[in-house]
């Protein structure tokens, strides 16, 4: 395998460059996926039937906390990738671990939020609005959950095998995925929660 040492590890082989390019295309598909879910949400968000509307169930504090955790995790994973470029395995792993813990915190609050909704009688079957809301949030949450396990698998590999073109490539692609989830969340925060709270 040819290794081009003028490039960062994650780009250093032909195969790695293909994988990063391919992953960008895949993210294009993910954008379409979430765009469709948003479109569904906006079609249905006023169709609350006899159930509650957004203003009645949304609470700002937990959502702000979620936003803070996820934004912070996007920052720490950036630091992790930076450490990786410097070849500092220990710092890289530390930042990745912090990222995953922040992600878990996010998930914890989200689960709590869902439980609260259900206690208030706002379930996924109550109205079209709630079906759309919970599917959108749930899809994002499922992505974060999947990302958590993915991140763990990568950490184990980096711990065992060190930083080499393969592990660096995986870690980098994972960071793209994680940033993407953050971006999607910003949209959810602004157009679902803030907008819902205002109206």
């Amino acid at each position, binding site marked *: 395998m040819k290794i081009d040492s003028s490039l960062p590890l994650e780009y250093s082989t032909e195969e790695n460059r293909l994988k990063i390019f391919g992953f960008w295309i895949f993210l294009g598909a993910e954008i379409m*996926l979430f765009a469709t879910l948003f479109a569904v949400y906006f079609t249905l968000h006023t169709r609350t039937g006899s159930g509650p509307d957004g203003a009645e169930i949304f609470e700002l504090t937990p959502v702000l906390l979620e936003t803070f955790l996820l934004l912070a995790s996007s920052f720490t994973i950036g630091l992790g990738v930076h450490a990786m470029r410097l070849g500092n395995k220990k710092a890289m792993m530390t930042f990745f671990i912090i990222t995953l813990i922040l992600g878990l915190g996010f998930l914890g609050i989200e689960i709590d939020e869902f439980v609260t909704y259900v206690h208030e009688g706002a379930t996924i079957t109550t109205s*079209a609005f709630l079906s759309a809301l919970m599917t959108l949030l749930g899809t994002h949450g499922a992505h974060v959950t999947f990302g958590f396990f993915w991140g763990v698998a990568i950490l184990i590999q980096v711990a065992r095998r060190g930083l080499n073109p393969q592990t660096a490539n995986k870690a980098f692609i994972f960071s793209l995925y994680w940033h993407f989830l953050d971006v999607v969340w910003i949209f959810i925060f602004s157009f679902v929660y803030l907008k819902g709270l205002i109206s």
Partner: protein
Amino acid sequence: MSMEELFHPLQEPMILAAAISIVVGAVVVVAGLTYFKKWGYFYKNWLSTVDHKKIGIMYIAVALLMLFRGGIDALLMRAQTAVPDNGLLDAQHYNEIFTTHGLIMILFMAMPFVIGLMNIVIPLQIGARDVAFPRLNAVSFWAFAAGCGLLNLSFIIGGSPDAGWTAYFPLASTDFSPTVGNNYYSLALQLSGIGTLLTGVNFITTIFKMRAPGMTLMKMPMFSWSILITNVIIVFAFPVLTVALALMMLDRQFGTKFFAMTDGGMDMLWANLFWVWGHPEVYIVILPAFGIFSEVIATFARKNLYGYKSMVMSMVVISLLSFLVWAHHFYTMGHGVMVNSVFSITTMAIAVPTGVKMFNWLLTMRHGKIQFTTPMLYALGFIPIFTIGGVTGVMLAMASADYQYHNTMFLVAHFHYVLIPGTVFGVLAGYHFWWPKMFGFRLNEKLGKAGFWFIAISFNVTFFPLFILGLDGYARRMYTYSASTGYGPLNMLSFIGALGLAVGFALICYNIYYSWKHMPRNEKADVWDGRSLEWATHSPVPEYNFAIVPNVSRLDEFWFAKKEGRDITAGKIEKIHMPNNTGTPFWTSGFLFLAAFFAVFSLWIPAIISMLVVFGFMALRSFENDHGRYISVEEITETEKSLRGDK
């Protein structure tokens, strides 16, 4: 659910017969493999292969099988309606059959046929040794195969979907469609859709990043262009289907209210989501056919393609427009005048770039020395028939007039007039054209041409009467009609045509057997005196595709090099890196299949367990340390010699 309910479709003799033939077929294959002790061979060379050419062949094999399956559905429908008040099928079975016919023909016949050809040809045509992600390619195939298997299983266990391939709500909701049929729909399409999406990612990367040195995008053969655009459409359109199917499953099996009639649900949302994917899907199966015709026409007219740039441009425009026309599928479902007008105009606009392509093909043939080979016949037949389809399409595009023929046989005739010459003729042309690349021998031309004539003539006999019936008000999806309507004679004519079509397809299948027995082997690599790079390597193609990756400096480099007596595949052989075969994609999809099957019956615990196994396989794959292998210089030299025939 009682046993009787579970196997309720089997109480119909025709369906029982179909089920038995599927089971017998499976038993014969299994017994044959066991008897000839070929399991090991079969597993090693096919089930676990990551070779794009073999994956392509498997796609085409499934597509042909499904053409047969969908064709039987079609014959049953035409037989049922051949005479008034016929009792061959009851309403429920007719519903199931037109649903599975449409689904199978589009998603499990046309799509895989196209994807099969692209798998075989694209890397060769762009001078690459492989696709970008060979293992992912195997995952794509097996996910698709799992979906295909699941849909066919619906015929035997639990009942097929019955709300049309469009599955409109509320018709497809549990209220109106209480069997598990539409659960099968959502899950089978979901699996195969994921496979298709991954193919999209794979081939965009392959085409962008793995072209032979010197081959800029504007020096790329037209088929490769059409596939690039197709895959971009796939990546944008399929996630919409993924979401739509997930919502459908949630509504049907978890009681959400997306498409419900109460609690704020909105059935029209389904129609919109479905067609936002569904219309581009039509172009996903038709653009590759346009690409194939371009190759075939240029090759057999012995001329370079007229208007290369405008051909590319027109495909790009078609692909953009394809996302802006979806509402023309439901003009009558209550949008305002404004909405209908806008969609009416965008739809008619598609005729312009399509017309450009038509003229380019005609001008390519002008003054050419045309060879009437089988693939060329399909290309020539396509032009007039597709034009009828196109003209009737513009008729349908007029929203106000559509109120007259909406949901009549006129529509059925129209879309068969575009899909059959477009897609089916296209893939059949490609199949005859590239067959020698796959297997090293040609298909018999006499049988091939006989097949073409049967299909082309019977096609018109089958579908032209439907235009007239449609204008006469004969509604679509009607399982029977009374004699007083006067629809009888034309329906009978159409049935006779359908029988002719069956003969044509039988000839195509027989040709495989005949040619395998009788056609000479060791054809030269460049059987048709071709133009693009796939003809520069041997037939059949060695696993590494090209011993020496060709250098390209212009469009149709291979053709010009031939004329100038240059060999673009000369050079020093070096060792080649190849991926190892792996059974993981096969087994992963096996468990995906199980998960989906349990989910159809809402058996969530076993479904979750199967999904966990799937994730387990993914984790295993992540930890695996497999760097592939090298083919040595000696081995390549040996292979090259024996393929060239100088032992």
